[in-house]
């Protein structure tokens, strides 16, 4: 694998190497960052929950199916949620380890 390429090993052990225009997408986690690429808000909530050790619930099936792309560098959870809320027209509340993200009223 050379610079600007991505190597992949699948479950059968087969290796493929392809040009990757956005290598940072795959390596950002090593610097503490989060990359959400065309992910549904529901999946993004699961990822954020894992990263921040909280449970993030998205209210509304339609809202949970909205797709979002994001890159966060060293951002605390409230800032991440604020940015998502602005991007998607949402609002969030937090009670302990539980975060509820819903469409803005």
């Amino acid at each position, binding site marked *: 694998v050379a610079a600007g390429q991505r190597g992949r090993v699948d479950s059968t052990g087969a290796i493929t190497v392809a040009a990757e*225009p*956005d290598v*940072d*997408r795959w390596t*950002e986690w090593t610097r503490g960052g989060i990359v959400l690429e*065309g992910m549904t808000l529901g999946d993004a909530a699961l990822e954020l929950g894992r990263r921040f050790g909280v449970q993030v619930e998205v209210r509304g099936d339609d809202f949970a199916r*909205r*797709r*979002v*792309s*994001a*890159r*966060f*560098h*060293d*951002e605390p959870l409230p*800032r991440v949620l*604020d*940015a*998502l*809320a*602005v*991007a*998607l027209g949402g609002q969030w509340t937090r009670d302990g380890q539980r975060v509820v993200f819903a469409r803005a009223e």
Partner: protein
Amino acid sequence: MMRRLGMSSGAVASAAALALVMLVAAAPLRAQRPERAAVAGFVALRADVHGPRLDQPVTLSFTGTLRQAIARIAALADLSVVYDDSLPGLDVRATLQIESVPARDVLLRVLEQSTLRALVSPSGQIVLVRRDGAPKATDELRGSVRRRPSRGRRSPAHESISVGTRFATYSP
């Protein structure tokens, strides 16, 4: 004309002075009008907005989609960027040849001709939103071309539409 309206030169001068005062007074009011998208402290990204990451010089030679360009800029400047993936114009082609330009200016440049604009939070996070007046995402393009019949020789017509990409047609 002034005489017919019954205004003396002094009155004209007073009116002009009043108009000038109104203009001067209106300018700061316009500047103070809140941003439509000023949510949670986010305001429109402008050339005079500063921050360590926004000021980070970026060197980039890039051809690809706007979406990829944003990702590259964000990665190079360690910027946090968020956008609704269904925004129109994200897959428009973009070409950048940038050498040591602040990330803020690169973002403004790449978004300049697009249907999107950037908001920035006090901490420097970027959120992309639809530019006011930009067309909504649709697979359908409607329009009509009306031309007044000319008496003489018909001249060729050239019509072009620019909606993210460019469409042009010619008639003989």
